[in-house]
């Protein structure tokens, strides 16, 4: 970790740490606000029609829903260094990365609502979002998004470009075979990959301390011969800094790196999760990274009331537009249920 990042990590409330210019900081804040606004809207829509109790299969957005509130700094800090030519493979909790990477919000939302205009024509749903325009994909199987990212990186390199792949998992996934195989193979073949681990402390209900033999997956990276960094305190600028270096390494042909971020799962593992197992629950909102960053940027003179209102309003407008688009999109015809198996 650089001294600057270490200083910010140790003292996240410290305003005016030198390094990032205002435009970048504003961009990080805007991305996080858009992502949170989006998740709050999906939360609203998801629960609107599940009652009177909670019937998971009911409503306009049926099924499991894994929302990313609290984890915005990871997506914002990493995706700031990417273009839509770079690939991102995300997890069952994908929305913040999809938003930050520039996936079309309307088509993503239509997919979440299971509509014909969705990214997958309603076939995939919220855990299986595929956007070829931004090389974004996600998977519901823990850790299994890592291996395809290797392939995308391999192809980009073979095609003579400096495009990269970012592969995202959680800390629980770092105990799955695919994680270890992928780190070894990417390292051995020097693939242009950035591995991101979102340590939100919880593998559903099992805390990291109960599942993981090491204190930091950055230590595991070293075991595979690649650089690893752990960013504490959900610090968006720390993520931005580490990602800048990791992305540059990959683009320069220097191989993969791993960034682990100690982040925060503000809500349940899935919607409907009562989180009875979670002793820190009452405490969690006080660590919300967005108000904290807002405070920091206000103190640095990057944000004021007008700017905040403008940013929130824009986020809300884009989000509600996407939701309206989704709701107006047709429900897929049942007669087409067996289409699209083969090209």
């Amino acid at each position: 970790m650089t001294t600057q990042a270490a200083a910010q990590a140790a003292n996240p409330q410290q305003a005016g740490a030198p390094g990032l210019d205002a435009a970048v900081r504003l961009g990080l804040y805007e991305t996080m606000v858009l992502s949170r606004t989006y998740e709050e809207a999906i939360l609203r829509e998801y629960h609107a029609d599940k009652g009177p109790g909670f019937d998971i299969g009911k409503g306009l957005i049926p099924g499991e829903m894994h929302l990313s509130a609290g984890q915005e700094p990871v997506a914002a800090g990493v995706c700031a260094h990417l273009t839509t030519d770079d690939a991102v493979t995300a997890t069952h909790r994908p929305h913040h990365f999809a938003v930050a990477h520039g996936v079309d919000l309307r088509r993503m939302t239509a997919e979440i609502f299971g509509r014909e205009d969705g990214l997958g024509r309603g076939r995939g749903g919220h855990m299986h979002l595929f956007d070829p325009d931004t090389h974004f994909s996600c998977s519901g199987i823990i850790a299994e998004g890592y291996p395809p990212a290797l392939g995308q990186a391999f192809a980009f390199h073979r095609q003579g470009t400096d495009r990269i792949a970012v592969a995202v998992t959680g800390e629980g996934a770092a105990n799955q075979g695919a994680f270890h195989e992928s780190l070894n193979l990417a390292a051995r073949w020097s693939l242009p990959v950035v591995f991101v681990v979102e340590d939100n402390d919880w593998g559903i209900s099992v805390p990291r301390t109960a599942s993981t033999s090491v204190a930091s997956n950055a230590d595991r990276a070293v075991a595979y011969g690649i650089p690893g960094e752990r960013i504490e305190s959900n610090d968006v600028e720390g993520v931005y800094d580490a990602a800048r270096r990791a992305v540059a390494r990959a683009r320069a042909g220097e191989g993969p790196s791993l960034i682990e971020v100690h982040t925060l799962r503000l809500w349940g593992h899935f919607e409907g999760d009562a989180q009875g197992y979670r002793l820190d629950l009452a405490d969690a909102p006080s660590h919300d990274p967005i108000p904290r960053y807002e405070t920091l940027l206000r103190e640095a003179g990057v944000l004021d009331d007008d700017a905040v209102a403008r940013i929130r309003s824009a986020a809300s407008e884009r989000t509600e537009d996407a939701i309206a688009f989704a709701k107006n999109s047709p429900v897929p015809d049942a007669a087409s249920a067996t289409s699209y198996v083969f090209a």
Partner: protein
Amino acid sequence: MTITETPTTPTPQSRRLTTSKAIVEAIAFEMERDPSVFYLGEDVGSYGGIFGSTGGLLDRFGKDRVIDTPISETAFIGLGIGAAVEGMRPIVELMFADFMGVCLDQIYNHMAKIHFESGGNVKVPMVLTMAAGGGYSDGAQHSQCLWGTFAHLPGMKVVVPSTPADAKGLMTSAIRDDNPVVYVFHKGVMGLPWMAKNPRSNDAVPEGDYETPIGKANVVREGGDVTVVTISLSVHHALDVAEKLAGEGIGVEVLDLRSLVPLDREAILASVAKTGRLVVVDEDYLSFGMSGEVVATIAEHDPTLLKRPAERVAVPDVPIPYAHALEYAVLPRQDRIEAAVRRTVAG
């Protein structure tokens, strides 16, 4: 490039190849033609593939196109998927079909589902090759066929050639297909110098470029008394039995399925409509698999096509034993096939 039925009549001067060399010929032609084709797997480089799938390719195309991987099936099959998504045409080898357990998620939840989950927007033009089959005492974990399991899971085509000519044509088709294709080669049809081989594993292979259609079965021997529907090495055993029984005036029609997904149900129905008797021979496990699917095809369409109940000759639902006599008691070899055919024509 022509798309034809595989020429099946060898002429006296036809050039002969083993199945393994025919496969290599197809791969080499495609690698020459299309720079995005590459082959990866364990021991596929200088070793040439444990069962001869890549012999000579490393010398010809170099280590950037023929790539040895670590023992990391999940990672390298996933790598193939990602490369295919981004426009390359990988051929990825799973050394033994039996190893599917360590990497099945990438295969059936990713390779096979991405096209569908993306509403057809993302293609995965990848070939997954694998060696299968027993008969040389490699034991329960190294002798399985398992094509029924792959065929059962939606989203991937499954081809299983029995002859050198089909092996070449199906490999060409598989590489050119924009879908994931599982290409299963039985070790016993490869014509390897170090394993007892059926004489038909070395046979005429047309020169030049041709595709064998995926999803089309082939009547490899016509007959009027009974239909034997089969695949892979069992085709050769069925032909051995057919040749023997011809001497007794029993006409055995042998239908080589060649593909399990798509399954050529029309060919099955046409043959059984003609003969009225069905024996299915499958070296995969008996229950919940290919042989049941063939019988179900008849039962759902018109069970009255059958004059006698269908017979299934498959590996019973047991792990494959190691000791030679035990292994050969469970394999669907000529003796069991002949007994089943005799039973079905007797009534």
